């Protein structure tokens, strides 16, 4: 692949967008691009698509739509070398227990949801798991429910989308679709 692709110069808009993405610490939304570049959303979206194609071939970077915005990442194929180069895998990648991911799933599909509702579905106590998820910033308190004692309601955060590589919650399969996934998971070896 190396050297086989023709070098394509970026347009001025694409260069500007590339520079913004390079310095951005969070995913950049179309609105944010618009505020800076004063261009039509259509033009920005087109430039982003062109950049995405540009990075797809023969680059160490990739452009992804994540958590409602756009962000530059390293190419997935370079994972090993980057883990060796920089001990960031521990810091950048949050490790979550099975219980934590399961609780996150319940919250993501039912948000806003109370702790007792999560516990009812999972059949176990979730106090500590919720505290862990709150401390990692993967869920947030989203007000209080109307039930007895006005229990706290929980919602997922943009960090949740980021950590699971999602653009929005709607990208997740529906619960009905998930009912039939057991066979698929056993085939792919996911425990």
């Amino acid at each position: 692949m190396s050297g086989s692709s023709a070098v394509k110069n970026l347009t001025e808009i694409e260069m500007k967008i590339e520079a913004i993405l390079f310095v951005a610490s969070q995913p950049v939304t179309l609105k944010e691009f618009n505020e800076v570049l004063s261009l039509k959303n259509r033009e920005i979206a087109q430039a982003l698509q062109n950049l995405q194609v540009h990075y797809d071939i023969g680059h160490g970077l990739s452009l992804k739509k994540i958590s409602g915005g756009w962000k530059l990442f390293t190419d997935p194929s370079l994972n090993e070398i980057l883990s060796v180069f920089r001990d960031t895998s521990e810091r950048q990648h949050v490790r979550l227990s099975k219980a934590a991911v399961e609780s996150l799933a319940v919250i993501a599909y039912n948000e806003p949801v109370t702790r007792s509702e999560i516990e009812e579905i999972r059949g176990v106590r979730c106090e500590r798991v919720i505290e862990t998820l709150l401390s990692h910033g993967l869920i947030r308190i989203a007000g209080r429910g109307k039930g007895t004692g006005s229990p706290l309601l929980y919602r997922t955060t943009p960090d949740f989308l980021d950590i699971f590589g999602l653009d929005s919650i709607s990208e997740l399969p529906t619960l009905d679709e998930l009912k039939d996934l057991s066979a698929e998971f056993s085939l792919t070896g996911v425990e």
Partner: protein
Amino acid sequence: MFQEAEAVRTIKRLSELEVSVEGFSGPLDLLCCLVENRQVEISLIKISEIVGIYGAFLSGSGKAPLNVIADFISATAGLILEKVLSLLPGYFQESPEKKTEREVSEEELRMILERYLPYRNAARHLLVLKSERDLLFSPEHEEESPLYTLGDLFSLSSLWWDLLEKKAGKSKINTGKRSLHLEGMPVPVPDEKQVETRISELMVFLERVKDVNLRRVMGSQSDIPRFVVTILALLELSRLGKISLQQEEMFGDVRIICCEKLDRN
């Protein structure tokens, strides 16, 4: 003596062994989960022993990242809380609930499991997504700037101005009497001083034009602070009997009539 030797042997064994428990952040996480689910009786666990062994393991390993220590403290705190609750009277009042749980019929249990299964699959799906996402790296950015209180902001801005002046070659030792005049920002003047100045301006103007309306006095300078200062100045001149103010219609223009030769002193 025997116990100490045993502890040393345990620590040595632990430092040679890395335990990875699938689905859990570590052995302590697993223990906490077992305790929470009442699969292990917390009152039988010596937390001090766990803390001692784990502490020695960390110091022996020579690396103790902050997040690992924080997780450890959090897990230990959770265990202590469980233990305290288990030792306090009334802890086992939950037992009737357990009885109810045991009384769940087979049909109800099947329904509970049916409802739970999609979420279990959702968790698996999320784990697949996460493993894909973990292959991606993005630039590490410094932590967000710390928050400053108002006082801090003042000293911080003073520091910035010093640096700017230094860069511009106007370096002087900070005398502590910094001028707060910023480009484009009006210099703050005490209210009474502003009104006095405006009275003087109006007196000069009214000497030339004896009968005028407020709109003309204001001209193009119609910003609110200037308007307020002008009104205050006119009221003061009216109080002194030097002008008379007339307004025929509510919210209409105000007519200003000069009553006598204005004495500017």
